[in-house]
């Protein structure tokens, strides 16, 4: 997910208003990437990946999600799929390296789940981790909350 934030006030030149929320949900038990994806270890070496509430809130309505096939290799920090919102295809990066063992078909059929339930029904892929040590390079919830706030402050 490319790192960006929506303008806070209405872009009068575009004659549109831009929604803004001060607080997005950040779950305690997850780890987070600077590109706004989350990862949760789901028993053993399996990690579940999705995009954060902060990300979906700033993207707007997700109308399409492109996900890879089971068996695809993913690499930490590299793109594994994309989402379309507001005429834009945005790359989604994997916060962890490994082999994709499951893809959320429900999100393919109902991309709005990414907006409605980014941490639960909107999960995207499950990855058999190549190296669990990679999780240490990701942010915890507090650090991610601070990161989002700093990013927001830089943009205003």
């Amino acid at each position, binding site marked *: 997910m490319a790192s960006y934030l929506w303008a806070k006030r209405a872009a009068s*030149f575009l*004659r549109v208003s831009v929604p803004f929320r001060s607080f997005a949900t950040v779950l305690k038990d997850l780890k987070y990437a600077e590109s706004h994806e989350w990862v949760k270890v789901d028993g053993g070496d399996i990690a579940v990946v999705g995009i954060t509430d902060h990300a979906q809130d700033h993207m707007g309505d997700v109308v399409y999600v492109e996900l890879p096939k089971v068996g695809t290799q993913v690499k930490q920090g590299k793109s594994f799929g994309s989402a379309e*919102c*507001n005429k834009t295809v945005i790359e989604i990066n994997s916060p962890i390296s490994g082999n994709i063992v499951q893809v959320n078909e429900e999100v393919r059929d109902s991309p709005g789940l990414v907006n409605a339930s980014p941490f639960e029904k909107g999960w995207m892929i499950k990855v058999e981790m190549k190296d669990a040590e990679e999780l240490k390079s990701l942010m915890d919830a507090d650090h991610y909350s601070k990161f989002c706030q700093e990013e927001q402050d830089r943009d205003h």
Partner: protein
Amino acid sequence: MRLPLMNLFKLNRMPILRQLHLEEMLMRTSSENWCIINDGTINPTIVMGISGKPQELLETESVLRDEIPVIRRMSGGGTVIVDQDTIFVTFICNKDTIPGLKPDPQRIIQWTGHLYETVFNGIGNFSVCENDYLLGERKFGGNALSITSKRWLQHTSFLWDYKKSNMSYLKLPQKAPNYRQGRSHLDFICRMKDYISRSGFIDETIRAAGSHFQLTPLHQKDGFLNQQYEHLRSRLLTIDELEEAAVYTPAVATRV
């Protein structure tokens, strides 16, 4: 302050699929900035965004009957039908290229809006409305973007002119901008040629780009164009896919 560098690729009647492949290749494999201007394409071609569904967007029986090629491109956005009277302009930039510009869709569109405002320079009451480019109350170009962690691409197909008969291949989209207000396609769009000459638009666009970037023109026969590209997402839909769409009846289907 020195302006960022940008390569300027002026093309003439490059087939649109080839142009899209070139853009995708430059987006993925180049670390330089690019402005691509293609003065028309050869044959009428329908181009949908990445999520476009032909059964919802096209009069597929007519499209099949008249053998109109249909492309699904790698960027988002809506459906257009392009031909020799369409002028294509694309910007591909590293995310930090333009000082102060954060690579999010609305800010990129706003930046292009300011650029094109100088192109029209008071002619035709140019504005950007709900991500479309308007002259007065009518659309003459839209936006389609692709953003990665390091780069962004924004491209537009401008209606310098169009044939009414070509518009009949497109359905009224289920999701339309508010400012469209239910207008038919022909009441919603306008021809750029009623406001500016073809060469004038291209020259002024290059001039406007030149106020933001240090442009390096490249010749059309540069080596990039001869490369074979693999694993590209922009592609031609097959006859089978269009035939399958033709037998599918969505809940709402309205001719434009």
